[in-house]
């Protein structure tokens, strides 16, 4: 064998000097390489969450996620289409139409595109990220104070609660996730929580948020209503308490709802800046009837608004309302996905009485396209939605009776989550529920007064408006009045289906809200029947098929959307809503 020493000597002594240059050259070109490479156009986690502005970016990112058409279209379909407000347009084609039709006829399949919650959870995850990481920024950036942090935290807790409130009302049993997902190694297996515990957690979060929330008066621009302010947080608490009160038939919850409504009402009142010549103090500063539509929906961020999602054409166009409501006559014949149902016909079930323009909302909320016809006789198939679409108040352009109204092609429309008249009607609903019996006039009359204020501002004259005498005969009359007024006032604002659900729950006995449907099914429980009167309201839009649909919607689980099939497929612990699980066990060849 050879001796290594010899080689060594030879290499080192004899040849090393000659090869030194060569070797160093080679190594020089080679050694300066690092296998740790960071992207040029992105910031990595290690460099993020370092300053106040990083947190601000992510907080605003959470709000901005709500603007996505995925979210808005679901809020519309869940809130409006499932109720008697809207119907799918017949002339559109494609899978979206089929999905809408399924929902409209109560045949929702588990793979329905609206039976998905991905977009809502995307918002939740963004909130969770801030909640999890913002605290550490305080030690990195002295500009980021504890106050800043708490205010950010309050907004994210509130936004997350709003998302869960939507989920609970639409899916009932949902995974309650409060940890942000950052890594692929995190456990993605979760179980569903019962709705009661989710709402309880949300209320706790909101209670905390309320303490540190930003005040609406801190801003004068869009941020006054574009962020989750204390008013918005209180509005959400009122909404959740009202919901829980309705489901659990719980007086304490109703009382809380009234209390939070009062907080909001008082706060809105205190924020009012008197104009010159304004002498009379009012309890509710609502826009006046003629201007209301323009103020609230066109000019946006009205005084009476509490929380609305801020859209701006170019940066964030509202593609959601555009696709679902906007009948864009002028341009290449595009058709919206949804029309208003026949009950909105003037002189129909929603706007019943008075002269042509007795209720400003009648003409502002919907519109008929039939050429030459007056708006009074809208044909069923063509009752178009104006709210969130039209760029002018109907009454501002009286010459346009029967012709196409000006449409907002800029997609600037905000989507309103809470506004004052909603809160007032919530309070009225809670007061009615608190009425001990049909003769409890103190509660009922207080409720009526609230409804009346909302109603009156949209009427030309006092004489057109509601009379206490007509509605003084008891709780159910008042309940129905409030339902009707909410429909008139809040049509197409993604509220109606939940109004109906509250109405139904208030008349359902034996609802087990602290157990998931799947567990109840395992235990062999019979599901509670849905309140007939509610179904009667809902089926008004379906001329011939109403009874069949009502029959399909007969029990509590049917009030909810199926758990997304795509998630059931890949998440072993998820349980389907038992009323949809018929086809789950089919084996394929």
């Amino acid at each position: 064998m050879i001796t290594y020493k010899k080689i060594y000597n030879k290499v080192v002594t004899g040849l090393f000097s000659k090869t030194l240059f060569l070797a160093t050259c080679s190594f020089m070109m080679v050694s300066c390489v690092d296998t740790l490479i960071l992207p040029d156009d992105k910031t990595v986690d290690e460099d993020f969450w370092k300053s106040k502005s990083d947190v601000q970016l992510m907080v605003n990112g959470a709000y901005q996620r709500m603007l996505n058409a995925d979210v808005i279209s679901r809020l519309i379909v869940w809130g409006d289409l499932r109720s008697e407000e809207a119907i799918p347009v017949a002339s559109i084609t494609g899978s979206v139409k089929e999905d809408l039709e399924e929902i409209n006829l109560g045949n929702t399949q588990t793979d329905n595109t609206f039976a998905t919650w991905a977009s809502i959870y995307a918002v939740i995850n963004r909130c969770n990220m801030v909640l999890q990481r913002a605290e550490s920024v305080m030690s990195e950036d002295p500009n980021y104070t504890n106050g800043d942090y708490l205010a950010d935290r309050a907004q994210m807790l509130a936004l997350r609660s709003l998302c869960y409130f939507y989920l609970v009302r639409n899916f009932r049993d949902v995974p309650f996730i409060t940890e942000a997902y950052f890594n692929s190694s995190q456990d993605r297996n979760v179980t569903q929580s019962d709705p009661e515990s989710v709402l309880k957690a949300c209320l706790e979060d909101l209670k905390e948020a309320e303490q540190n929330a930003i005040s609406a008066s801190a801003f004068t621009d869009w941020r006054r209503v574009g962020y989750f302010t204390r008013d918005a947080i209180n509005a959400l608490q009122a909404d959740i308490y009202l919901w829980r009160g309705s489901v659990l038939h719980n007086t304490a919850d109703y009382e809380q709802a009234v209390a939070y409504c009062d907080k909001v009402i008082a706060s809105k009142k205190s924020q009012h800046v008197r104009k010159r010549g304004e002498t009379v103090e009012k309890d509710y500063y609502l826009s006046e009837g003629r201007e209301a539509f323009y103020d609230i929906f066109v000019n946006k961020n009205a005084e009476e608004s509490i929380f609305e999602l801020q859209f701006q054409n170019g940066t964030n166009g509202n593609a959601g309302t555009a696709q679902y409501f906007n009948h864009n006559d002028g341009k290449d014949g595009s058709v919206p996905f949804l029309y208003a149902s026949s009950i909105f016909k003037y002189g129909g079930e929603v706007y019943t009485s008075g002269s042509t323009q007795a209720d400003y909302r009648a003409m502002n909320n919907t519109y008929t396209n039939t050429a030459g016809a007056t708006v009074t006789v809208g044909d069923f198939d063509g009752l178009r939605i104006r709210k969130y679409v039209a760029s002018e108040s109907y009454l501002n352009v009286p010459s346009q009776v029967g012709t196409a109204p000006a449409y907002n092609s800029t997609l600037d429309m905000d989507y309103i989550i809470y506004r004052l008249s909603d809160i007032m009607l919530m309070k009225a609903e809670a007061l009615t529920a608190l009425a001990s019996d049909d003769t409890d006039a103190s509660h009922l009359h207080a409720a009526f007064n609230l409804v009346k204020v909302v109603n009156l501002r949209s009427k030309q004259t006092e004489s057109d408006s509601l009379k206490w005498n007509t509605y003084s005969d008891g709780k159910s009359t008042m309940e129905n009045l409030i339902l009707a007024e909410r429909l008139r006032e809040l049509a197409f604002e993604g509220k109606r289906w939940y109004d109906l659900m509250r109405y139904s729950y208030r008349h359902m006995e034996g609802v087990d809200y602290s157990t998931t449907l799947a567990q109840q099914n395992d235990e062999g429980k019979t599901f509670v029947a849905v309140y007939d009167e509610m179904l009667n309201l809902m089926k008004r839009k379906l001329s011939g098929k109403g009874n069949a649909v009502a029959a399909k919607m007969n029990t509590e689980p049917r009030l909810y959307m199926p758990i997304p099939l795509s998630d059931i497929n890949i998440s072993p612990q998820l349980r389907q809503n038992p009323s949809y699980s018929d086809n789950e066990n089919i084996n394929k060849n």
Partner: protein
Amino acid sequence: MKIKKILFTALLCIIGQELMAQGVRISGTLTDNEGPIMMANVVERDANNRIVSAVQTDFNGNFSMQVKSTKNKLVFSYVGDKTQILTIGKRTVFNIKLEPEGTQLQEVVIKSKRSNSGGLMISKKEVSVSQQTFDLENVKGMAFTSADEALQGEIAGLDIVANSGNLGAGTQMRLRGVTTITGDANPLIVVDDKIFDNPDENFDFANANEEQYASLLSVNVDDIASITVLKDAAATAVWGSKGSNGVLVITTKHGSRGKPRVNFSYKFTGTWQPKGYSLLDGDSYSMLMKEAFYNPTQKADATTNIEELNYNTAWSEYENWNNNTDWVDAVTQFGGQHEYNLNLAGGGEKATFRISAGYKHQTGTIIKQKFKQFTTRLVLDYNVSDRIRFSTNFALTYTGNDRNYGNNILGLAQKMAPNMSIYRQDSNGNDTGEYYIMNPSESGKYPKDGNYSSYELNAIRGLGNPVAIANLAKDREETYRLTPDFSVKYELLGTEPDKSRLTLNGRVDFDIYASSRPVYYPASLTSNTWSNQMYNYSTNTEVNRFKAGGRVELVYTPHFKNENWSATMLARYEMSTEKYNKQFLEMSMLPPGITASTIFAWLYDNDSMTSSNSRSASQNLLYNGHISYKEGLYSLGFSLRADGDSKFGPKNKWALFPGVSVRYNISDEPFMKKIKGNWLSMMGLRASWGINGKAPSSNYLFYNTYNTSAGYYGYGTNLQPIGTLDGLKLDDLRWEKTTSLNLGFNIGLLHDMIEIDFDYYHKVTKDLLMSSVAIPSYVGYGTLSYMNVGQMNNDGWELNFTAKKFIKIGKFSMDASFNIAQNENLLKEMDQSVLDALNNTYTNYTSGKSGSPWAITQRGNWPLRVQLNNSLGSIYGFRYKGVYQYGYDYLENLQKENNWTSAEYEAAINGMLAEGKTFPVVRDQNGNVLMDGQGHPKRVVYNYANNNGTGSSTYTFQGGDAVYEDINHDGQINELDIVYLGNSLPKVNGGFNFTFRYGNWSVKTRFMYRFGNKVVNLARQNLEMMYNTYNQCSSVNYRWRKDGDLTPIPRAMYNTSYNFQPSDRYVEDGGFVRFQNLQITYNFPKKIIKKWGLNQLQAYASLNNLYVWTKYSGVDPEVSPQGYGVAADASQTPRSKQFTLTVNVGL
């Protein structure tokens, strides 16, 4: 070149003389057989062979020079003569006679026996891994666009399938099966020891179509000397993370010592398309359409308004719709290819070189397809001394590919309405110069309402005029690729064979790629308004990639005192870094005439720009060794590679890839001597084991990346910027690792006249990488960009047989070779959630995109299913049982006529069923009809359960509809009736060749084959669907028209029916034998060409793609599956038939 060499030498002489002022003067004369030699070299060299001084002989062969040291050697050389080396010593006069050269060839032969195995030179009989070398000399004179085409059918276990017959479309190569689900399954290509990968890293392989840049196009086939295919993991382990699909090692030609040789070749190739489907002419088409529109509604006025079908002379466009246009003929043509190659090679002792240039110009078999390629390569090796050697290899490739817009002109032509004219016709029916473009269409509008096309023919309108598209739209891809490398070799120890050697190699290499692809679709191709997205639509894609690498290695070849032992080993450090940029511009609604997407037209805001860039770096360390005993009686190879890649996070950044192989040449054992006799010349047993890996193709997966310019929130003033997290950080991603075991033997018979080698392998791929894996949506993200999802196995064997000159009678001799390979792919494990997610998807082969979820209500789309313990590429669908001969009403009418009771009725139906008649009624397991409560037979429906609504839209089968086997006898055809129909992967594939020689003539034949695979004949599915207004195959003339028709073709139903659902009607045997090449070569006799002053002259004539023996009914059964999809023949441009004429001239 000779002049260059002289100048170079002269320069050295001057330098030499400047330096060597002192010393001994010597002189002498050089002669050879033909007398004194002028300009012969006399060189003084030192012990390391470094040139000290040099002179050249004068006119009379005399020289005189001053030498530095008498210890040095004098080297006398002249081109064409043997070099003589003498030590100077005390001698001062050298009268030397040089002998003519004749033995150098011998050296070359020895060299070629050694093969490069991961940087080590190992003799062929010691190669212990599984590899196969293909010498490009075998296919000289044949025309190939890229080298992979030459390899088709030549390498056992390498399955090569052409993507399509479009120019520059490239091939799909699968070595020993597929070891990946969504990643690139093509083998790694290595050119001169340098990785030659696909520069477009954002390429999505799972949904790939032919648009991919075929990397091998950058290497001129003419520059390639040989291709070695490394098959087992022990061989590919030296390529570590990149080699898991196998490696193709391409060696380019180098210069060799000798007189400079000029070689020029010219090839002409003529190409034409095989005959495709016979399509309907205009008259049969309009008849079919009328029937298709009538059948669903049965209304007499179903087509009254569709003037395009009515031959109404009163209509202004009548002349444009009364034709019998053969659209396929209009878009196909005879294509030609001219290829010129020129190379100059030669060199002396100091330097060898090869310079080549090639130019190729192709026109396609589809009109307006054009492909141009220019390549040049310079290979220079310079020996400074015996110890130092510099080399450079410098190549430039330009390709210009004029594609058809949309790459599917033939597909459009097949679908076009044949009664429409290509050019607008005047009132006399004569063509004008203008292409005919259909008028706009609108729902409910007809030609009678104005300038409209019937809405029903919207689909035809959507196709556009294929001839016009080919002529007016453009899609031109230009690429430049520059791949220089510089290397230096330094011998640190001995240079002679009997000394231990230690060599230091250093290399820097670059790979610079740029491509640009402007696409333009002019407004004149549609009648859309300017507000349409396709109005003057133009895009531009620019890709730039820069890759640089460096390598240092030490090769140590010790010399053992016991000469039975030999060994060689190397240690290598290598790094590479890469930068990638891509920019995509899109613009439409441009003013007419503006074709550039870079014009910033303020008119309308339909423009977009996307760009991406990324960087990555990797490093690796390799140790590779080889030991053999008794000249390869026993050989042992081992290697270990460590790979570090910036694509992985800190936890899994480095991975180790070992490989071990052994070989036992049993024929060299003394005891074999007797047994061996004359017939057995070699018998070696091989075994190897190794691990390979694969990294994902994206960068930055291991970071949480935040996009801090994702947009804004707010309205009006004080807009707030937002930030978003791009996706989950893949902190638990691991390398995909393939462990493979290989067992094989080599046998040589009759002095290696016949060689056989056989390999068996077992490959296990763990931690399969899959891209875009669905995760529960409550996580906040829909997919993970990559995930390790499961395990896949590949088992198979390969046999290779070659016989060289096994028949030799006088001037006649014959060679034969044969190879066969079998591979079985099995998916062993997979995350259930991934399986579920995959199985809910489908592929729409028309768009090439996959969608989800697959629903039974979709028409024509094939469901994708991936099942454990099945191989990828399995095809699922219904079983097709022909066409319902009679309708339901036929039965009901019979009952009414005959007044049958329920029982009689049932018996009558069963009787007719037994006769073989078919009705759309439900049958039980025994084939008897099922009656409902009212005494009527139950009707077969399509997918009742998933029907949306009240049941009114459930489709009931009628007479003339397709019969699908109701597997579970539930009376409805739905997902539960879908069964396994076969697999897309071949059971066996390979090739066989024969060569016949007679004197200066030789004939070569090459065949390739694949058997046992199924192909979804999507082309036929589309051509027999009778569901839309596209033109159909003439076989639909046999369609069902009335009760009683017995035919396999269902009735025409526009926009209704489920007659073309995925079923075995379209699943065909894809086995074939292709007669790929028949080549005749004539070597002009030396005597003749000497007269013409030439060195070499050959003429070749070959026919390519001569004939295909197959049962497949389509044009070309050569299709392979993409990703986990099925092999579908989507009627892409078929491989053309060709002839090639080549002349090769050597000076």
